[in-house]
């Protein structure tokens, strides 16, 4: 699955960058985040309760950051397992662009979802991913004290996982 989008947040670039690197703000913004810990500059571990429709599965995972250019962009690789429910792994790229009225956050994600979640939930994984991204940015903008100005998300492609 590929998910990409843009969000305009009414806060300056430096504040958005700090927010994206602040585990306290991330904890409050990631839907269902129960625990998040920064292990090093490059590694973050988290436990998230994934809750959508009939599915309620707890995922534990880690996030490895690379190509970090402060206030500009970074790449990340992530993987998480949810016990019997399945696993998710993938990579994402985030770019911050200074614009009138705030910061444009541009992101693109590629993820594969496997296990039971992939087989059963596959029908609506795209829509679920979009909902989670929307919820995150809404909460994130609120945490920074700004508003979310525009929402523009595109789900590019639908790849079937084996």
């Amino acid at each position, binding site marked *: 699955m590929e998910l990409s989008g843009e969000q305009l947040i009414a806060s300056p670039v430096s504040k958005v960058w700090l927010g994206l690197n602040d585990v306290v703000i991330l904890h409050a913004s990631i839907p269902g985040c129960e625990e998040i810990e920064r292990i090093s500059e490059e590694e973050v571990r988290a436990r998230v309760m994934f809750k*959508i*429709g*009939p*599915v*309620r*599965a707890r995922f534990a995972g880690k996030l490895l950051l690379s190509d970090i250019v402060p206030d500009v962009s970074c790449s990340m690789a992530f993987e998480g397992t949810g*016990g*019997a*429910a399945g696993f998710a792994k993938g990579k994402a790229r985030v770019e911050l662009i200074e614009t009138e009225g705030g910061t444009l956050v541009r992101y693109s994600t590629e993820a594969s979802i496997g296990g*039971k*979640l992939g087989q*059963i*939930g*596959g*029908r*609506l*994984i*795209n*829509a*679920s991913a*979009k*909902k989670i991204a929307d919820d995150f940015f809404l909460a994130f903008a609120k945490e920074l004290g700004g508003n979310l100005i525009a929402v523009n998300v595109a*789900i590019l492609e*639908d790849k*079937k996982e084996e």
Partner: protein
Amino acid sequence: MKAAAFDYIKVKSLGEAISLLKEHGEDARLIAGGQTLLATLNLRLSEPSILIDITAVSELKGISLQGNILRIGALATHTEIENSDLIAQHAPLLKEAAPHIAHRAIRNLGTWGGSLAYGDPAAEWPACSLALDAVMVIQGSSGQRKVSAKDFFIDLYTTTLKADEILVASEIPLASGNQVHSFQELARRHGDYAAVGLAAMIRKDKGKVQTCRLAFFSVAAIPTMASKAQAFIEGKPIDAELIQQAVNLAREEIETLADITNSQETKTYLLGVLLERALTKMLL
């Protein structure tokens, strides 16, 4: 696989169910027909600590006429709706839609309220409730409230129901003599989730369309009304040109979401095909 361990309580009243929901919050799930919930439990996609069985709560049962509305209790099964004379007479759209819901064994157990509260974007009842301007009757610890179908479905699998609330019933205005309907669904095999579906209702008046409701399902994150196409049709005289323009409008205004087998483009194309079929059947 087998479900993880959970507690089970069969309640006898609505009040009892609501106070249990209030006490256990997110850890509790209501169970009625269980046609979605049990599969999720057995696959361990969800592990609630307590199941509250509401099948013995009499306030949630039955289909009845109450003045000028038809009341469908949340526990009415798909089969009861399919076989009900009251439904056939006063909400014939539902009778036509029922056979499209999964298979007989599932229809015998699955419920009206379960389908609505679960809010699957590919399900039949949520779209039908929109097309018929149904009102949801909701009971919670702070009392009863009513919400129209168009405000009930908020997001993917998300309704306006709060954690301590139960959908009690739906109230549907009785079908009038000048009312026609059409239910259209495309699925790869009968009983599968819809690729695209449409629940439509039109009231005519002297050769013109008076009211038009076009509720699509399995096109986006929630069942979706083609409001521009509806507004375009209302008040207009009926002819083939009207249908074609409405189809174009609906294709433009509905932002479809791809699923695992059908692309955005496929869904946009198919929704127009279904709308043309439905309008032709209802109007010409």
